[in-house]
């Protein structure tokens, strides 16, 4: 058996692992850190322009090799498994949650509070924005007050966004541009955005992705990145309840088991694979898996639901100016009381929907050449706004990740199965929520002589999280607000799994903020000796 020892072993190689390792290496430069990731490292940034072009021309995967065929989970929203994780191809959206997300119980009598004060989290939001390189503009709402400005000026609104903002604000709802981890000036060794309109594969590095952090970390002599290595189980010290080792297998040498030993282990494998590993690590002493004396590992799996609309408007929109940059209103982050609880963000993007070229005209006849172009031009006279609201829903205890005995990987390990369920209060609000959005879309449309082309509800929970929720009470949570598990003092869970609820806007900035805070607690252990 191949054995590796380090001071900290981080399981998982996405944005959470990158931020945890980076901050730890700054706070305690003498620490040796090993990151173990099942996927490959895709560090060939020099090929990204070519991958982007193949993606445009042939719909090929712009991140070739970013998955493991038999390491799949039922209910996940992304198959990406590579060094950098989902944040290789994220849109870079960096919205903050609001205080309401942390105080649902005390403010509205709903679900649960976080064991963390808003001011404390806000401090780490600022740090997360600095580290990721977020460009943004201040919110028009006093409740969104920030203790530090954004590190970079907001990305300029394109002609399209200027038109869309004019239109959307006629409804009386204030909008601002969405903050993004995209450089509007050279930042942290990465280039300024050159508006390629393909942010999911940024060919210049202007949009942050964790591979840049890992490449920087690899220049340190006491940092190791073991990719293509799947951690299959955590094992405890014989006499204590501390984790002694992570047992793994390298995909290139599957017959030679690998073991990682460290005084501290941190799971940074996201909402799916972190609780999955804890459940896989069951033993006669811990038959329900590790960190699971509460029975809540793989419970309270969360995310937010969404409602969307395409609205045709009287504005000259030129589709393709910068499709990934949009507007957000935070007006609906605040609600009066529990009776009016429909919390959501409200987003607007440019779109070509309803105005794309088509083969058949309104009468069903085939259009060729000039007639197709004439039909397209006629329909493109008006613009389209893509509108979406991510809304706050709360998980039931039985919103679960379980081990699926009917689906196993090549090593015989049962794979995860995620089934989201919403709590009774959320279900009771379903009709009111739907009606709220229908009225809101109509209000937006009517204010600007627009027409709702279609509406739709998401069939999955976006920006998922949970599975190892934080809390002050060990009977009702898996870890504390630093991600330190209640059951094993040297085992941390970082980032998305620790969220009790997923708010009503993109979660990545929150995952990173919590991780940066956790890093201080981990570093503190080593300061104490």
């Amino acid at each position, binding site marked *: 058996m191949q054995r590796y020892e380090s001071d900290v072993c981080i399981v998982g190689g996405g944005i959470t692992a990158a931020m945890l390792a980076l901050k730890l290496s700054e706070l305690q430069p003498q620490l040796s850190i090993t990151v173990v990731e099942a996927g490959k490292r895709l560090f060939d940034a020099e090929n990204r322009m070519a991958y982007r072009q*193949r*993606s*445009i*021309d*042939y*719909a*090929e*995967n*712009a991140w*070739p*090799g970013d*998955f493991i*065929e038999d390491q799949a989970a039922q209910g*996940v*929203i*992304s*198959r*990406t498994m590579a060094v950098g994780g989902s944040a290789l191809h994220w849109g870079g959206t960096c919205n903050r949650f609001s205080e309401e997300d942390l105080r649902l119980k005390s403010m509205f009598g709903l679900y649960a509070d976080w064991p963390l004060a808003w001011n404390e989290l806000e401090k780490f939001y600022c740090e997360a924005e600095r580290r990721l390189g977020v460009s943004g503009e201040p919110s028009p709402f006093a409740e969104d007050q920030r203790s530090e400005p954004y590190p970079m000026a907001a*990305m*300029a*609104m*394109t*002609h399209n966004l*200027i038109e869309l903002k004019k239109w959307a604000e006629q409804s009386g709802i204030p909008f601002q541009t969405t903050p993004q981890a995209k450089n*509007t000036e050279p930042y942290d060794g990465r280039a*300024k*955005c*050159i*508006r*390629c*309109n*393909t942010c999911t594969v940024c*060919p*210049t590095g202007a949009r942050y992705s964790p591979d840049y952090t890992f490449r920087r970390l690899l220049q340190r002599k006491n940092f190791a990145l073991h990719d293509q290595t799947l951690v299959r189980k955590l094992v405890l010290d014989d006499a204590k309840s501390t984790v002694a080792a992570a047992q793994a297998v390298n995909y290139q040498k599957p017959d030679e088991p690998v073991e990682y030993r460290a005084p501290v282990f941190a799971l940074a494998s996201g909402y799916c694979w972190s609780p999955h590993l804890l459940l896989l690590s069951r033993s006669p002493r811990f038959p329900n898996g590790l960190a699971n004396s509460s029975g809540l590992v793989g419970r309270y799996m969360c995310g937010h639901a969404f409602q969307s609309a395409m609205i045709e408007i009287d504005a*000259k929109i*030129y*589709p*393709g*100016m*910068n499709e990934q940059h949009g507007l957000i209103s935070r007006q609906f982050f605040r609600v009066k009381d529990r009776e009016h609880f429909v919390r959501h963000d409200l987003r607007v993007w440019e779109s*070509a929907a309803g105005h*794309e*070229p*088509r*083969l*058949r005209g309104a009468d069903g006849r*085939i259009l*060729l*050449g*000039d007639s*197709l*172009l004439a039909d*397209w*031009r006629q329909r*493109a006279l008006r613009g389209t706004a893509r509108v979406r609201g991510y809304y706050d829903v709360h998980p039931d205890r039985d919103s679960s990740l379980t081990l699926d005995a009917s689906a196993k990987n090549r090593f015989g390990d049962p794979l995860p199965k995620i089934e989201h369920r919403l709590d009774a209060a959320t279900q009771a609000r379903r009709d009111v929520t739907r009606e709220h959005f229908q009225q809101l879309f109509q209000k937006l449309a009517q204010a600007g002589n627009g027409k709702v082309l279609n509406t739709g509800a*998401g*069939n*999955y929970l*976006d920006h998922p999280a949970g599975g190892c929720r934080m809390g002050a009470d060990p009977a009702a949570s898996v870890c504390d607000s630093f991600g330190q598990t209640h059951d094993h003092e040297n085992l941390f869970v970082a980032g998305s799994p620790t969220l009790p609820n997923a708010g009503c806007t993109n979660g990545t900035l929150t995952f990173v903020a919590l991780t940066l805070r956790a890093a201080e607690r981990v570093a503190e252990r080593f300061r104490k000796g």
Partner: protein
Amino acid sequence: MLIGRRTVLRWAASLAGALRVSSVRVWAQAANFPADQADTLRALAAVVLPAELGAAGVDRTADAFVIWVRGYRAGAEMDHGYGVTRLRSKGASPAPNYLRHLEALREALLSGDMESKRQAVTAALEQAKITDLPRTPDGRHVAADLMAFYFRSSDANDLCYRAAIGRDLCRGLDGSERAPAPLKGRA
């Protein structure tokens, strides 16, 4: 009736041989596309692409389509999606299908007036049950795919809006607050 081992082996050998021959043929057809159908492809382009491109522009688009077909990689990974996710890969090269379609249209496209050519292409698309432009060319019919290749392109987007939007280009942030400039040389 029991089938003898030797018979099974003979069948297997001939099947493997056929598959090898078949895949070599597909490769050759893709590499040499459009072979002796270059004039048919250009004639098709003149029917299904907008006249605003001009004769030279139509020919350039047909040539770009040829390069696209030759650059197609059968079996290449596709994006696995977000939300509802699944692993997918590109299908076989569309070149053999295209050659058959072009052969079937050859006579109509290389003789007759524009109206009869349009009718022939329309009939072929109806027969192939093509209901809309594919998101990307998918091999079901060369006429639909040539149209998708062009009309879903950044250049066609510019032509539709008569503006230099440059959707698929890396254009820089400066000046993006202004409406895109009108297309040069076009109304």
